[in-house]
């Protein structure tokens, strides 16, 4: 009696497992047929089925649409397109005014993507939290144009000097007397001026030493 009920239980659970696996393969089938009419690639050359074959052969069903590699920190847009979050984030950064899905051009945003968590995903962290560090701006030294709009901002200089031998320390303020802009780094003129300023610095030390010891 108990054995019988156990076997029916087993049978039932076996059936259940079979049903589950059937459902699973069904899901797989539908997802494969979905990629068959993959928007964007199939429509352009009319070789849709060929594409689908290739995709399933490569196992590239879960490839990011931007880096073409298996999606990591995967997110899926509302329109169903898979991306690595860093890739999609970078794309959204390059088009801050038009945040569109690269595949189908529907609206996409941080809050309009769903993070995906796989079975063996070790971290339960939202991939959207790990926004890659923003790339540093490309800063180049500006080419200094001789812009003298107000006269004051650019033409204000203060210099300390050692007056020999009586004005022990004299300072002077120069107003409204523009100087040439400093040459750009790396140019020969810049190099020369650096050397010259070092030379005068040493001269100043020598003078101070002479004043003290003499």
């Amino acid at each position, binding site marked *: 009696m108990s054995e019988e009920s156990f076997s029916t239980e087993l049978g039932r659970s076996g059936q259940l497992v079979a049903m589950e696996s059937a459902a699973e393969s069904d899901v797989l089938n539908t997802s494969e047929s979905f990629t068959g009419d993959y928007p964007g690639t199939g429509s*352009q050359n009319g070789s849709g089925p060929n594409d689908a074959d290739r995709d399933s052969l490569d196992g590239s069903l879960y490839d990011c649409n931007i880096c073409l590699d298996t999606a990591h920190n995967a997110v899926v847009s509302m329109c169903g397109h898979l991306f690595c979050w860093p890739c999609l984030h970078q794309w959204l950064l390059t088009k801050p005014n038009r945040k569109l899905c690269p595949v189908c051009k529907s609206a996409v945003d941080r809050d309009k993507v769903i993070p995906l968590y796989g079975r063996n995903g070790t971290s339960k962290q939202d991939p959207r939290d790990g926004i890659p560090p923003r790339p540093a701006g490309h800063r180049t*030294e500006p080419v200094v144009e001789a812009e003298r709009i107000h006269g004051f901002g650019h033409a204000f200089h203060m210099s300390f000097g050692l007056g020999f031998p009586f004005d022990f320390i004299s300072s002077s303020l120069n107003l409204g007397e523009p100087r040439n802009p400093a040459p750009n780094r790396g140019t020969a003129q810049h190099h020369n001026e650096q050397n010259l300023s070092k030379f005068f610095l040493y001269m100043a030390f020598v003078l101070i030493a002479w004043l003290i010891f003499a």
Partner: protein
Amino acid sequence: MAQNISPEQSGAGGGGTKHSDDSLPVKDNHAVSKRLHKELMNLMMANEKGISAFPDGENIFKWVGTIAGPRNTVYSGQTYRLSLDFPNSYPYAAPVVKFLTSCFHPNVDLQGAICLDILKDKWSALYDVRTILLSIQSLLGEPNNESPLNAQAAMMWNDQKEYKKYLDAFYEKHKDT
């Protein structure tokens, strides 16, 4: 003395930013070349009819592609070579694509520059070498005469017979290029 020091300070600051500039694109370049290698693999596997592309020498960032003139158009039977120049920001920015073979077409100028929206403002990170070449191939047969780069070609387009005649003469003249 204060003046003497300040350039040094700004110099050190400049050096600092320069260093971070140097370190970033290296990482980016790796991702870009990885994607370009993948595209090359896909192109070779797909063996698409009418288009082909391969890196030009050692540099993976410069490719040379060929497209066959689409059938049932005035361009059928012709083969065109194009250069594809990928920026470091690819695929977030479009590559620069130019015709190497002279091409008489309403949307191609005599220097080989192409006027195509997907290479400009309609660019998407999804597009790759394959889709670019296919788009240019279909552009050959279906020019956008609204915004011509070659006004003469745009004017002549309506009379396809005359256009074909002119085209044949054009290729006779530019055979060596």
